[in-house]
């Protein structure tokens, strides 16, 4: 009896330690964003929303927030579109060297963001393309395309082939087959790919830092804030970023994955 109790206690303790280890930094970050004082370090002086006020009053931060949102949505849409087209072609047609092509599409996953950013920087320089949010977006398409392709490709089962055939048999052309039949059937994985891309793009720093100039995304703006020392304002903006990521994941989990399981 006592041994059982001890075992239960130990496992609870283990779980608490594990989750504490994962979530303590986030909890501290969020807690000290409400700090009533100039430094986000213990002791906690009292509850205040002044740093959130400061965040929303900061034009540069708000602009960066908007930029991040734009880059994340547009680059994710493009990555999903390209990923879908590549997956459709490789899953449905016999292409020369298709295993090699699949490998090449997924390969960027294994390259570090720093290398990708440096490579793109060199290429853009050589082409004489100026750095802007567009170049950040291109970088994010490069890192998210392999993920989108892999996710969508893996959900294109052979059992969909006959369904597409049936659509063609009933008079649908290739574009209509893709738009009205293939894409809706793959909607869960298309949305999963899109939202995952959004979260990756949303907190990506190195590429956004190296490929942007005057207009920057939120992580880059936060980084420049941090250079002027610790400040509860960075905690506040960090908490907001975290809130957005969590919301996207919750939407995915509650709405999308539940729906997929049902059907």
């Amino acid at each position, binding site marked *: 009896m006592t041994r059982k109790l001890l075992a239960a206690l130990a496992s609870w303790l283990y779980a608490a330690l594990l989750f504490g280890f994962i979530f303590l930094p986030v909890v501290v970050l969020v807690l000290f964003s409400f700090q009533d004082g100039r430094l986000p370090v213990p002791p906690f002086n009292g509850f205040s929303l002044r740093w959130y006020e400061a965040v929303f009053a900061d034009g540069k931060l708000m602009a960066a927030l908007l930029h991040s949102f734009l880059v994340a949505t547009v680059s994710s849409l493009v990555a999903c579109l390209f990923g879908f087209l590549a997956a459709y072609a490789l899953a449905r047609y016999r292409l020369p060297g298709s295993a090699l092509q699949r490998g090449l599409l997924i390969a960027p996953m294994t390259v570090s963001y720093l290398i990708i950013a440096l490579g793109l920087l060199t290429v853009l320089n050589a082409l004489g393309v100026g750095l802007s949010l567009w170049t950040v977006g291109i970088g994010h398409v490069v890192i998210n395309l392999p993920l989108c392709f892999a996710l969508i490709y893996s959900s294109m089962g052979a059992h969909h082939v*006959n369904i597409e055939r049936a659509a063609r048999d009933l*008079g649908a052309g290739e574009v209509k087959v893709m738009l009205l039949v293939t894409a809706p*059937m793959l909607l869960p994985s298309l949305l999963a790919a899109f939202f995952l891309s959004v979260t990756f793009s949303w907190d990506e720093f190195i590429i956004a830092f190296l490929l942007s100039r005057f207009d920057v995304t939120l992580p880059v703006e936060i980084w420049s804030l941090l250079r002027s020392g610790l400040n509860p304002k960075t905690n506040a903006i960090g908490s907001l970023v975290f809130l957005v990521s969590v919301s996207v994941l919750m939407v995915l989990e509650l709405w999308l994955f539940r729906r997929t399981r049902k*059907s």
Partner: protein
Amino acid sequence: MTAPVSIINATKTFVGFTALDNVCLDIAAGEFIVLLGPSGCGKTTLLSILGGFLSPTSGRVMIGGKDMTHVAPAKRPTTTMFQDYALFPHMRLKDNVGFGLRMRGVARAARDERAKALLDLVGLKESAEKKPHELSGGQRQRVALARALAVDPDVLLLDEPLGALDLQLRRQMQDELKAIQKRVGTTFVHVTHDQEEAMAIADRIAVMNRGRVEDFGPPAEIYMRPRSLFSAGFLGETNFLPGVVEALDAATAKVVTAIGDLVLPRRNFTAAEPDPGQQVTLCIRPEHFRRAGEAVRPLTPLGQARIADAAFFGTHYRCHLKPAAAGDPAGDLTIMAHMPPSAMVADGQDIVLAVNAEDVVALPTPAGRA
């Protein structure tokens, strides 16, 4: 609508493999045709060529008098009902059924009305707003049928549509399929490997084997007067009895076998005219065996045989018999015969077998099987 179909010398070769070998078939408008054969016989390849999903290596396909050999599926007056139903999982039933009309630019109200009428035809009017995953296998199958019929095709192609259903439902669906075909009048070409299903629904059956059509005709003709050994063996059970043509006259031919001589009408040589000395194989259905002196029709006795085992099947006893005749050199000839349920049948019993010569079909023995 409905249209005749002609397949002219269709051949399809894949790398190192001939799936269809010079197939010719003429199908009349409004017929219910079944392509019957074991897996790998080329029946699905032939259906795909009719539907436009495959192009024949050589030969032509005519539908309604027009050459359709290289026309895309979307442009053909055919629709296909797929084995796995291939319903659009994200669409409601009425949108599934109305899809073909939508592709033809029919307005929503009109296609919804037509979809409802067809769902009514297959008995699913109440489920128009449901999605495919809410249906049972048999219901999905009906939706697939309604969807394929909604565009009013000239020819409906059915690729083993009942294969995934359990036996009872399959028998029920084949009756419904037949009834619906009669109502709409469309030419149906139906692929199956189930010979009972084929006999139940077909106007004519094309028996296929190794890429060739071995036999083509109404079920009764194929069963009673098969034109190939494969056809005789595939459709129902049969006894193959080797023999030699000995004597001929204008109307009959005498065939000598190990268990007795039979004088057959010449028209019972269904594949080729008999030649004296020719090796032939006699095909005798188990239910055509009688005990000597049992029937009203004249019987030819086939000597004594011993019942090796018998099983009761309700409509008959199914018996394996060992002929006692000495003429059987290898001694491994076994005959299967059906005896009436009223008969007294016991293992080890000796009976005198007999058969009416009219019921026996003689086919040339292929070289190497003599």
